[in-house]
């Protein structure tokens, strides 16, 4: 009897603890990726004469390169199962979704495999980004403010 009661109480608290752990892990990992981004910008600005706006473009390209390479090498998926949103929400997740869907359908050929599936997951981000940006910008333009 005591054991059953204990189990009921224990089960109540089990998923919550896991959720809390997930939240903390994604906060720390996401924060570290943001910190790396800012650090790359400051390093580029410090050692070259590139302006800060151009340096941010280079930073995004570097992050995309790292994410694509680590997805192709196969250890990005392990990081995703561990860190979840911490690593999927930054721009690394965008590069990961493209490389992983392209790799997955590689066997089906260049046109119907890679070509038609490379935007399988990233397509929704691009589509809704463009549609929403278009309508918000129209409203903004018609209101007369830039």
């Amino acid at each position: 009897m005591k054991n059953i009661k204990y189990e009921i109480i224990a089960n109540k608290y089990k998923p919550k603890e896991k959720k809390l752990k997930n939240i903390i892990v994604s906060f720390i990992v996401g924060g570290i990726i943001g910190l790396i981004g800012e650090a790359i910008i400051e390093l580029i600005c410090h050692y070259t004469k590139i302006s800060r706006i151009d340096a941010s473009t280079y930073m995004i390209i570097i992050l995309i390169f790292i994410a694509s390479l680590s997805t192709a090498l196969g250890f990005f998926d392990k990081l995703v199962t561990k860190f979840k949103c911490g690593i999927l929400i930054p721009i690394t997740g965008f590069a990961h979704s493209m490389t992983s869907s392209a790799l997955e359908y590689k066997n089906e050929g260049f046109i119907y495999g890679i070509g038609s599936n490379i935007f399988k997951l990233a397509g929704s981000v691009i589509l809704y980004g463009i549609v929403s940006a278009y309508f918000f910008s129209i409203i903004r333009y018609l209101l007369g403010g830039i």
Partner: protein
Amino acid sequence: MLLINSFLFCGFICMMSQIILDNTKLTPGHITSMLVVIGAFLDSFNIYDKIIKLVGGGALVPITSFGHSLAHGAILKTNQYGLVGLLMGMFDLTASGITAAIIFSFIFTLIFKPRN
């Protein structure tokens, strides 16, 4: 100071999306699309530009900055071309990111073999 701000901002966005992921039935695909729409919305009234000034690189890393730069490039082109400028300038600022993602993922797909 910018380093700490970017840690906090990027971590905060990831934390919020993790909370949404855990407590609802939405998939990561839903959440990233939602964040892009939020980023595009925040570009109006120049809210996101103020965040970038305050936070630095940390605001450019999350996927919200993708929506922001889509809307921002579009609205900048309207100065010159009017309403058609929205269509011309949409990809102005994000072109490097999208092109880099396409090129790198294609090259790495050619080189590496898929793993299960």
